C-alpha cells in the first residue's frame, strides 16, 4: 500500500481531500490477499504464512498485481490461519506456508485453490466465499466487519473507509447535547458488563462539577476465554479512538486514557501506533481539524490484575496506586480519576459510537431487543466446533449462536450448559437455550451479559468442577480488601474442593447458598457480589450433580478423579493392548493375545486415557 505523506489536517475539507486521494490511489478491482495477523492466527503460525506471501510476491515481481494486507481478527479462529482474497472474498482456511505459491499463482490467474476452501460439515459441500460460510451467515458484523478491510497499523486504511468523517461531522455540525441525545436515543448500553445506558452516563459526566474531565477506555479484559476487546483494539484501534474523541467532545473532556493490560502486547502496540498516526494527522492533539477542540490520549498499561477491570480499581491503578476498588456511593462520573468527573467505557462501547453518529440513532435502534440495542460480540469457546469471535444482533437465541454460528458440539456430544458473562456469570442449561440474548434476559436466568465471554460445556463437563474452577479463579483475583469476598471465596473454594474430592457433607449446598447470599449483599465491589453466580446457577440447574457428589460420592460426568474408578470389563476385553500403550503410568498389563488386560488400581491415576482409547467399551468408568 502506498503511504501518503503525513501532514496535519486543519479542516474537514482537507480530511475529505485526503480520503479521496487515498481512494483514488487504490484499484478496487485489484486482488488483495488478506491475512489475519490477530493473536489467534499468529498462535497458529500466521507469521510464517505472512512471510511466505511476502517472499512469493517479491519473487514473482507481482507487487502491481497483488496487494497484501495483514489485518486484525475476522473471528473464525477455529480455522486459522485465515486468508481471504479480496475483492471476491474467497476464504482459505488453515493455510500453511507451503500452500502459498499455489494460492498466489491461482489468484493471479483468477483461479481458486479448492482444497483450502471450507467444507460445510452438514452438506459436505465446499464453500468458496467468506459470507457464505455458516459461521458468518447469522452474524451481523457491524464492528468486526471492517477488521479484514484494515491494516491496523496504517491509518490510511481506516480513512479510506470514511474513518474520522463522523468525528468531523460531530465537531462542525453537532452540539455536545445533540451527540448525547443521539447516543441516548440509540439505546446503547455499556458493553463492559454493567449494561448502563451510555448516553445517560455521558450526560451525568458532562453535568458534574469539576476542574477538568477525563474519558477512559477500559481494555483490561481479563475473563478466562474472552478476547472481544482485545481483537477490536488489535484490529481496528482507530474506531475506538474515534469513539473516544466523539465522547470527549460530548462530555467536554480534553484528556483520555486507554487502560490496556500488558499481556495484550499486540493491542498495546496497535493502540500506540494509532495514537501516533492520528496525532500526526491532527486528529488528536490541539485544535483538531481546525475546530478548536483539543483532545489527547495516553496509554496506561495494566499489570494483569482482573480486579483492575472494575472502574474504581482501574482508576486507582491509573493514578499509580494499588488497584483496589472503593465504594461507588459517589459515582465516578462525579469523582473519578484524580477526584475529577470521569467517564469510563469499554472498548466495544466506544467502537459503537462512530456507527451510531454516522448512521443515526434510528438506524442503530432497529437492531436488537426492546431493552438492548445493536449487536454484541461474544468469544465463543469451550466444547464448540467453531471457536472464535462472533458478532450477533441482540435478541438472537443462545441456540442460534451455539448451533448455527458455532456449529454445535464436537464429536456429536450432548450440550450441557453455556456459561455467559465471564467468571462471575452463570451456567445456563439446555432448557433455556431458546432464550433471546440480551442484558435483561440473561440476568433473569441468573447469569449476565458481562463483557461477552461464552463458554460451552458438553456432557463430559462436571458442573461442580466448573463452579470450582471459576471460584478458584475469582479467589486468586480477589483484591482481598473486604471480608466477604476475600474470606468468602476462600471458603467457597474449600467447600467445592471437598465436594469434588469426596469429602462433601450434608448441608454443604445450603452453606454455599448462605455464603453466596452474603457475598452478593455485602461485598465491596462487583467482583465479590457477582462471584456466587457460577455456584448459584449450577446449584439451581444441576443440583442432582452436587447431590451425587455429596451423597453417593459419585461424579456423574466422570471428571472428579477422586470419585472415579476405572475397571476392565473382562468379558469384552480382547487384550488388544491399545489401553496398555495409552496408559502414562504403566498401570495396565498386557496378559497376552485374547486375554483381558489387568489394571492395577494402586498405580492408576484416573486420567481416563484408557477409557478414551478403548473403542469396545471394555473399560468401565464408575
Amino acid at each position, binding site marked *: 500500500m502506498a503511504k501518503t505523506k503525513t501532514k496535519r489536517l486543519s479542516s474537514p475539507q482537507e480530511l475529505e481531500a485526503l480520503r479521496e486521494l487515498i481512494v483514488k490511489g487504490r484499484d478496487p478491482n485489484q486482488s488483495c490477499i488478506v491475512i489475519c495477523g490477530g493473536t489467534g492466527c499468529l498462535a497458529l503460525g500466521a507469521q510464517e504464512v505472512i512471510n511466505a506471501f511476502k517472499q512469493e510476491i517479491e519473487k514473482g515481481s507481482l507487487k502491481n498485481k497483488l496487494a497484501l494486507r495483514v489485518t486484525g481478527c475476522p473471528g473464525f479462529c477455529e480455522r486459522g490461519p485465515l486468508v481471504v482474497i479480496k475483492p471476491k472474498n474467497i476464504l482459505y482456511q488453515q493455510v500453511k506456508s507451503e500452500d502459498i505459491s499455489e494460492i498466489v499463482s491461482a489468484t493471479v490467474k483468477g483461479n481458486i485453490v479448492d482444497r483450502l476452501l471450507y467444507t460445510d460439515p452438514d452438506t459436505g459441500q465446499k464453500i468458496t466465499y467468506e459470507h457464505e460460510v455458516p459461521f458468518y451467515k447469522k452474524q451481523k458484523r457491524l464492528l468486526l466487519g471492517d477488521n479484514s478491510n484494515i491494516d491496523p497499523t496504517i491509518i490510511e486504511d481506516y480513512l479510506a473507509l470514511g474513518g474520522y468523517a463522523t468525528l468531523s461531522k460531530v465537531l462542525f455540525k453537532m452540539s455536545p447535547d445533540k451527540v448525547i441525545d443521539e447516543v441516548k436515543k440509540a439505546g446503547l448500553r455499556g458493553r463492559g458488563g454493567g449494561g448502563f445506558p451510555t448516553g445517560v452516563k455521558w450526560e451525568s459526566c458532562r453535568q458534574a462539577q469539576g476542574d477538568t474531565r477525563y474519558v477512559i477506555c477500559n481494555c483490561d479484559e481479563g475473563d478466562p476465554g474472552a478476547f472481544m476487546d482485545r481483537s477490536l483494539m488489535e484490529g481496528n484501534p482507530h474506531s475506538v479512538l474515534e469513539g473516544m474523541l466523539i465522547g470527549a467532545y460530548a462530555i467536554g473532556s480534553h484528556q483520555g486514557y486507554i487502560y490496556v493490560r500488558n499481556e495484550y502486547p499486540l493491542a498495546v502496540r496497535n493502540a500506540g501506533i494509532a495514537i501516533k498516526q492520528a496525532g500526526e494527522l491532527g486528529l488528536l492533539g490541539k485544535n483538531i481539524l481546525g475546530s478548536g477542540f483539543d483532545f489527547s490520549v495516553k496509554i496506561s498499561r495494566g499489570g494483569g490484575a482482573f480486579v483492575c477491570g472494575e472502574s474504581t480499581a482501574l482508576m486507582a491503578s491509573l493514578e499509580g496506586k494499588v488497584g483496589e476498588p472503593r465504594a461507588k456511593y459517589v459515582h465516578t462520573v462525579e469523582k473519578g480519576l484524580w477526584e475529577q468527573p470521569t467517564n469510563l467505557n469499554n472498548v466495544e462501547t466506544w467502537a459503537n459510537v462512530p456507527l451510531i453518529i454516522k448512521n443515526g440513532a434510528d438506524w442503530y435502534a432497529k437492531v436488537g431487543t426492546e431493552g438492548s440495542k445493536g449487536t454484541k460480540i461474544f468469544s465463543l469457546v469451550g466444547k464448540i466446533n467453531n471457536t472464535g469471535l462472533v458478532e450477533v444482533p441482540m435478541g438472537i437465541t443462545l441456540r442460534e449462536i451455539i448451533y448455527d454460528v458455532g456449529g454445535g458440539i464436537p464429536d456429536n456430544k450432548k450440550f450441557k450448559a453455556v456459561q455467559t458473562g465471564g467468571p462471575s456469570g452463570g451456567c445456563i442449561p439446555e432448557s433455556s437455550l431458546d432464550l433471546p440474548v440480551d442484558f435483561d434476559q440473561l440476568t433473569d436466568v441468573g447469569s449476565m451479559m458481562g463483557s461477552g465471554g461464552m463458554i460451552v460445556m458438553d456432557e463430559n463437563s462436571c458442573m461442580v468442577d466448573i463452579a470450582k474452577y471459576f471460584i478458584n479463579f475469582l*479467589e*486468586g483475583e480477589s483484591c*482481598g480488601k473486604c*471480608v*466477604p469476598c476475600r474470606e*468468602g471465596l476462600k*471458603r467457597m473454594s474449600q467447600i467445592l474442593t471437598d465436594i469434588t474430592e469426596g469429602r462433601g457433607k450434608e448441608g454443604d449446598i445450603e452453606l454455599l447458598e448462605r455464603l453466596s447470599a452474603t457475598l452478593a*449483599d*455485602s461485598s465491596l465491589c462487583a467482583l465479590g457480589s457477582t462471584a456466587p453466580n457460577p455456584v448459584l446457577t449450577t446449584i439451581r440447574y444441576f443440583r442432582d450433580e452436587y447431590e451425587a457428589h455429596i451423597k453417593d460420592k459419585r461424579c456423574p460426568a466422570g471428571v472428579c478423579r477422586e470419585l472415579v474408578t476405572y475397571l476392565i470389563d473382562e468379558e469384552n476385553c480382547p487384550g488388544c493392548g491399545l489401553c496398555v500403550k495409552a496408559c502414562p503410568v504403566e498401570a495396565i498389563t498386557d496378559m497376552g493375545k485374547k486375554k483381558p488386560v489387568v489394571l492395577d488400581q494402586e498405580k492408576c491415576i484416573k486420567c481416563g486415557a484408557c477409557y478414551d482409547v478403548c473403542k469396545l467399551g471394555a473399560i468401565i468408568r464408575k
Partner: protein
Amino acid sequence: MVTLKIDGREVQAEEGKTILEVARENNIYIPSLCYHEEVTPYGACRLCLVEVTGNGRERLVVSCLYEVADGLKVKTNSERIAANRQMIMELLLARCPNNQAIQELARQLGVEKTSFKLDDNQCMLCALCVRVCQEVVGVSAISLVNRGVDRALATPFYEPSDVCIGCGSCAYVCPVDAIRFEDIGDTRYIYWPNNKMEFKLKKCKTCGNYWAPEKELEYIRKQANLPADAFDNCPDCRE
C-alpha cells in the same frame, strides 16, 4: 443540616457526615471493626451494613462510607442485615478462631461457632494500623502486602523498616489486639503478625527512666521544629 430517620427516630445531622458518624452521635449502635474517627473510612469489614431507603429504592450500604441526606430512612438492623453480619462473623471466626475480641463480637451478634475450617490468625486485615501509620503518624512503615487470600500486614519485604519510629500507634489502634508492644529495660519490642522490631528507648536525664523510643522523639522533634534538648527529660521531670 439535614433531617433523616434512623430506626424510626428523626435525627438532625450535618451534611457530609456518614450514617455511622451520625448514628454514634445519637447513641445508636452499629457494629464495626475497621472504622476509626481519626482516619479515612475504608469499608472493608462490612459489619456496619445498614438498609437505606432514598429515592424510593431500598438497598444495603456500609454506613461508614454512605453520607447522610435529607429524607433518608435508615434501618440499622433487620433479618437481612443480621444474616450478613453473622456470616461475616463466621468468616472472621474461622480466620481468627483464637482471637478474644472477635469471639466476643461474634457472640454479641449471635454467632457461637463457625461453619468453616479453622485457621489460626490474629489479624483480620482491617488496615486500621496501616491507615493510622500513614494518615496520623505520617510514616507509612507498614502496609498490606500481597493480594486476595494471601493478603498480609507487613513491613516492606518483611524486613525491619527504616522509617518505623516505634511509636506503637498501630498496636494502640488495632481493634483485635493483633499487634502488641512491650518495653523491657532500654528496649521497645513491637510484634506484628509477620515480623518484629526493636527500638532503643531514651533515658530521662533527671529520673533515669526509659520513657519513649529515641526514633519517635527525634521524629516529633523534627516535625514540631523543637530544640535539640526538647526531650532530654521525660514528661514527669519536665518543668
